[in-house]
């Protein structure tokens, strides 16, 4: 029997970390993820976990400390947001290229400047090419579930890559909602012990980690890293299947919400998917065939699967909660359109940049997108593929 609870997204993440009981947590507080290390440090003080908690002096050091801990052979976790992630940037790449399966809770927030503490996805999009597996979460439940599944994916011998679990700052991190928790012993069994093949503290097999890597080998090492990311796809599905057996909750690369028979569809990530479900339900009552593709696994990007899921749709809108400022379209839009093109699926697709800096995304906003899509489905014409949603004019 699962445990019926009500928790904020940050509480949910901290509880997941408590149940995972990693060897090391190193973190520096930053809004809106501050509560995660705050709650976790309480668990440490109360003896609820055996974790070594390192209160570092910056996020750069937080990532460096988790890298050190993982290289030594331990299981390490951290949490951050926005500029905290920016400060980690150098270390983010080192973590993934050293194939260290660190797990991070990223509570998405706009990267400065000017200073803004509210939600968008500019922090996550800044590290989309860094070689981290990136999972997105609609609500507290998914933030929790994704963390419980994280180590099994990241630590798999065919993957060995760090993983971040994203959720929307304030919108889910600070909202109290219902959640089903898994019993401690079940989580412990599911996550299992971390037994790396090679690690620095193994005196019987001394190794070097992260030395100089020039023209002769870096290319090959990067190709191996890319292979790890490809391999992650299979592992993500296997872990999800096992998770479903334990909890009854089904996960995949993405959730298809009333997409089967849909004529118009939105593609988006995190909390906006919940608001979109609400709108889809109300449009369905009016006989409008609206659907949603909620992306959970952004890296590795399930290009072929997305193309297949959207091939029958008459008009698609991709919602980006970060602007790539490239005069062409947001990151998710470009990934989805290229997936469609490469897989030879010809579907009209528009892009909406929305919710920047915490601009609230209302049900009415989502409804207006579906209205635009109805028009596009009818005419097949898209005058401006790269648009704004909710921008004041």
């Amino acid at each position: 029997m699962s445990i019926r609870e009500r928790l904020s997204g940050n509480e949910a993440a901290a509880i997941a970390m408590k149940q995972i009981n990693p060897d090391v947590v190193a973190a520096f507080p930053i809004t809106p993820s501050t509560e995660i290390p705050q709650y976790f440090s309480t668990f440490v003080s109360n003896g609820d976990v055996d974790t070594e908690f390192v209160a570092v002096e910056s996020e750069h050091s937080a990532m460096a400390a988790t890298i050190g801990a993982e290289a030594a052979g331990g299981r390490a976790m951290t949490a951050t947001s926005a500029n905290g992630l920016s400060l980690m940037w150098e270390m983010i790449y080192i973590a993934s290229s050293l194939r260290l399966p660190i797990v991070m809770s990223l509570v998405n927030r706009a990267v400065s400047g000017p200073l803004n503490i509210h939600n968008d996805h500019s922090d996550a999009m800044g590290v989309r090419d860094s070689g981290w597996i990136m999972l997105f979460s609609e609500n507290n439940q998914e933030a929790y579930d994704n963390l419980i599944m994280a180590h099994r994916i990241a630590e798999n011998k065919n993957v060995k890559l760090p993983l971040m679990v994203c959720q929307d700052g304030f919108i889910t991190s600070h909202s109290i909602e219902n959640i089903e928790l898994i019993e401690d012993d079940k989580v412990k069994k599911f996550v299992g012990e971390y037994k790396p093949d090679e690690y620095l503290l193994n005196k019987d097999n001394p190794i070097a980690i992260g030395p100089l890597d020039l023209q002769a080998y870096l290319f090959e090492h990067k190709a191996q890293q890319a292979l790890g990311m490809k391999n992650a796809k299979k592992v993500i599905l296997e872990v999800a299947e096992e998770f479903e057996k334990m909890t009854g909750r089904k996960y995949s690369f993405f959730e298809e919400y009333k997409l089967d028979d849909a004529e118009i569809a939105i593609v988006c990530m995190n909390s906006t998917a919940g608001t979109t479900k609400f709108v889809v339900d109300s449009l369905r009552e009016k006989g409008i065939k609206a659907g949603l593709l909620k992306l959970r696994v952004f890296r590795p990007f399930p290009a072929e699967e997305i193309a297949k899921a959207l091939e029958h749709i008459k008009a698609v809108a991709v919602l980006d909660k970060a602007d790539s400022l490239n005069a062409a379209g947001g990151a998710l839009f470009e990934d989805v359109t290229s997936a469609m093109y490469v897989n030879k699926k010809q579907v009209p697709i528009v892009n909406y940049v929305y919710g920047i800096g915490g601009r609230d995304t209302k049900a009415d906003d989502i409804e207006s997108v579906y209205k635009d899509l109805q028009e596009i489905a009818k005419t097949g014409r898209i005058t401006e593929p790269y648009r704004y949603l909710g921008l004041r004019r």
Partner: protein
Amino acid sequence: MDNLIEIRWHGRGGQGAKTASLLLADAAFNTGKYIQGFPEYGPERMGAPITAYNRISDKPITIHSNIYEPNYVVVVDDTLLKDVDVTAGLKKDGAIVINTTKNAEEIKRLLKGYEGEIYKIDARKISEEALGRYFPNTPMLAAIVKVSGIMTDEELLNDMKGSFKHKFAKKPEVIEGNMKALELALKSLEKVNS
């Protein structure tokens, strides 16, 4: 009860409107509901206007935006009535609950012709009598439960006893006062219009 009840709280930083919204979420959760409780975070300062929200439903809640057309509004500080459009989007078949000592005419004038039900409660008097200090959130919590009918008085009192024990584990001396504040509030809620 409707499938989805939406409540908006207006208060000033430091008065506990956020805490009250979280306590309401807690209480509704304990009666088996699906809940959301979340504040609108801004530059938080003591005394600045703040907004907090609740959604309560028999079914899972997926919508994640602020609330623009609430069924109920709670005003924790009546000085907000002239600065903030507290009835914005408030449903006509809904209700507003205000912590105030103003008379009916004055309240109606400040609400600029809101057609739904209007309730008032003197949360200061109740709080000072029950707790010896001014914490308006506990009486306002009781008031909105009564007006919205989310749960019965008994359910609220039983449930909050548990919540207060947990919340005030380090200062048990305030539990009794908070329970008294709830009881007084349930009795002294007053309907302003007919």
